[in-house]
């Protein structure tokens, strides 16, 4: 085996869990969309009505993009599954690229590899091969999901290709960020910024009249313009391919010229002392997490603003009563600004739950880096330390929830929508029981099986959310629908706050956190 293929195999093996999880998500999601549409809208008449009302709705397009063909199951699936899928593929691309390059350098392993009988160019190409292999797995997951949903093979292969296409560009962006930033974390933040930007451009292009041409400026728009199941335009594929190739080549040139282990931009290595937030481990954790918190806050606030502004785009008269029930089967009942906000605030429940998990993952990172040994060799108790981290996570979640509710209210108010400020604050607070439930479950995982805990808790939240979206479409029995906490979240401000559900979630979360604290106190500290 040549050195380069050894590198590629190791990188691919390293990411097998992530690749499998994304491919599984693609498979289930693609399948559910195809089956769900065929089931809910069996006739052409149903589908035409759907296209006229729901398909033309701006708030819906915000997430799924512009539909090109809603008369066929394939066209619908291309819109619903492809629109979200291309974003997920972009996320996968940048994660994979940074994991295969900067993360290795950041950990100091790349020096060892490059000290072997392999040139930098070959090592870089090997990382690319690993990313390409992973993308092929993603494609296969999506393709199989579509086939299982009884779509034709050729169209399915093309739709899967269109959906995975953004990987080329965002892996390229990730590779470039990996050249610029000196740490994995900063590289991730840079590349994620590029993805958010691409998404916002697509949103503006899809939603503003006369700005449709802007779709050509974002890789996520290219996936739409490939028009799977709606008059395919395969020539558009040259855009992601050429764009990705340019980014990858540019990153390769930089990679061949710079110092291994450093980034082009590496910040200052010396600094005058800043003694704020050094008084306790919790204060230090706050200091370390402020940057990432600002990112979460900024990202969710922009979303909240867009949702608030668009919340008036539905009018009750445009949706016939007969259709409303069908929409409810899809989990949607948007007829008023409150209704729209209620539906889309579920997304914040999900996002804030993810934030809670990210905080436990950050705590685990401290342990994996073996810094906790130094800390716990002093008079710091383990339970106090973890409780401090959890309190910090809860406070951060509350701050994000408060911010999104105020910003969304302001967005709605700017459109003269009648949404009560108090109800919006309630909608923000409504995010917290679920987030705290997952915070508790994440700390339980951290206490019981630290090495897998971050992956398990992210996967748990995502699976619970996706299950909530697709379970009904799959015809799951009632008790199976109810296993996901998202099923029990009231759609505030449209619906009432569900007190019992909140109490149960908080109790389970607190219990899980208590067991997590207990288990963490009783186990060995574990390095990476």
């Amino acid at each position, binding site marked *: 085996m040549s050195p380069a293929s050894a590198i590629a195999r190791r990188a691919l093996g390293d990411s097998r869990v992530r690749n499998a999880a994304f491919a599984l998500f693609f498979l289930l999601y693609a399948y559910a969309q195809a089956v769900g549409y065929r089931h809910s809208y069996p006739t052409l008449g149903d589908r035409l009505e759907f296209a006229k009302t729901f398909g033309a709705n701006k708030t819906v397009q915000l997430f799924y993009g512009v539909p090109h063909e809603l008369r066929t199951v394939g066209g619908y699936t291309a819109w619903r599954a492809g629109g979200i899928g291309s974003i997920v593929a972009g996320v996968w691309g940048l994660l994979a690229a940074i994991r295969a390059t900067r993360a290795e350098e950041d950990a100091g392993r790349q020096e060892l590899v490059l000290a072997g009988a392999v040139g930098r160019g070959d090592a870089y190409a090997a990382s690319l091969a690993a990313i390409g292999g992973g993308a092929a797995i993603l494609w296969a997951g999506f393709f199989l999901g579509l086939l299982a949903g009884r779509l034709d093979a050729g169209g399915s292969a093309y739709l899967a290709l269109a959906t995975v296409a953004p990987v080329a560009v965002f892996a390229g962006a990730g590779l470039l960020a990996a050249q610029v930033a000196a740490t994995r974390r900063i590289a991730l933040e840079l590349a994620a910024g590029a993805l958010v930007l691409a998404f916002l451009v697509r949103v503006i292009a899809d939603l503003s009249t006369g700005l449709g041409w802007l779709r050509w400026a974002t890789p996520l728009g290219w996936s739409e313009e490939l028009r799977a199941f709606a008059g395919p335009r395969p020539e558009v594929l040259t855009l992601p391919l050429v764009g990705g190739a340019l980014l990858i080549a540019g990153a390769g040139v930089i990679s061949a010229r710079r110092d291994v282990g450093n980034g082009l931009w590496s910040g*200052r290595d010396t600094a005058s002392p800043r003694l704020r937030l050094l008084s306790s481990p919790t204060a230090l954790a706050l200091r370390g997490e402020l940057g990432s918190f600002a990112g979460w806050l900024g990202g969710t606030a922009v979303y909240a603003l867009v949702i608030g502004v668009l919340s008036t785009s539905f009018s009750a008269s445009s949706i016939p009563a007969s259709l409303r029930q069908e929409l409810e089967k899809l989990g949607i009942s948007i007829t008023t600004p409150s209704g729209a906000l209620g539906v889309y605030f579920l997304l914040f429940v999900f996002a804030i739950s993810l934030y809670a998990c990210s905080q436990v993952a950050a705590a685990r990172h401290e342990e994996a880096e*073996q810094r906790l040994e130094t800390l716990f*060799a002093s*008079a*710091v108790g383990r339970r106090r330390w973890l409780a401090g981290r959890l309190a910090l996570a809860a406070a951060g979640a509350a701050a994000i929830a408060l911010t999104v509710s105020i910003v969304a209210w302001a967005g709605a108010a700017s459109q003269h929508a009648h949404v009560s400020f108090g109800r919006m604050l309630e909608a923000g607070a409504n995010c917290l029981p679920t987030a705290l439930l997952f915070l508790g479950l994440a700390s339980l995982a951290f206490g019981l099986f630290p090495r897998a805990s971050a992956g398990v808790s992210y996967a748990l939240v995502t699976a619970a959310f996706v299950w909530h979206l697709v379970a009904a479409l799959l015809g799951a029995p009632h008790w199976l629908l109810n296993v996901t906490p998202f099923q029990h979240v009231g759609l505030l401000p449209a619906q009432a706050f569900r007190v019992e559900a909140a109490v149960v979630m908080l109790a389970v979360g607190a219990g899980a956190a208590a067991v997590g604290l207990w288990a963490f106190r009783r186990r060995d500290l574990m390095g990476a």
Partner: protein
Amino acid sequence: MSANDPIRAFGLTKRYRDTLALDALDLVVEPGEVYGYLGPNGAGKTTTIRLLLGLHRPTAGRAELFGIDAWRNPARAHRRVAYVAGEPFLWPSLTSEETFHFLARVQGSTDEGYRDLLVERFQLEQRKKIRALSKGNRQKVQLIAAFAGRADLLILDEPTSGLDPLMEMAFRQTVLEAKERGQTIFLSSHILSEVEALCDRVGILRRGRLVDQGTLAELRHLSAQTVEVTFEGNAPTLDGLYGVHVAEAGPNALRIEVSGSIRPLLERLARERVATLTSREPSLEEIFLHHYDDSDGRVPG
């Protein structure tokens, strides 16, 4: 043994899945002592320290720091303890100075004057971020933070790995200062010269078992010492002498290894025409190798 001994371990045992990392360790380190904990890589030194600090949970037995159970009550047990980890993992985005500040708050106390002196002695650039420091420099940050805290007990896990010889001398000076002040030091190491120069007592660990323990003099006494004798004629045969082993024999010279008392040998040699006689105590290295020599239990030649 008293409840105020800085370190006490009773049958301390740790098993990781099917590896027995530490096997029924009994250990007492008394106040003011510098205790050298010797062993090759993988012998269980770091495991011992993690158990002593309550970072890992003993499979059996227990460890006490100043009479407080390290696993049940770690925060209280650590009040008078400072620790230097084997690998200098610190917070990469903090500067050295910020790290000192933070660790001082966490440990509860620091002697700032002494810290400044140590920063000078170890020639540390305080405003550099940890991520920009070499391994040796990060090691210095840990050492300065630990010694500046003036803790009653210092637990040091291979503290000089990564230090250059000049800094190694600075380290020895700092240890001797701490000893003079009455601080207790538990020094895990595989650098024999360092242990020989600093430690009052030494424990030798082999595959998770404490195979020997005592002052250097005691260890020497128990180990063989080497006597080289030349004769003004043919060398005699020395059969039947208790504890005497001829390691090398020339026509008129012998190299003899003696375990236990040297008197029987001297009495025997008194009857011979000895030209020269040199005797040297075994170095710690020889004692150490003695314990790791699997062949015949004798000091390798």
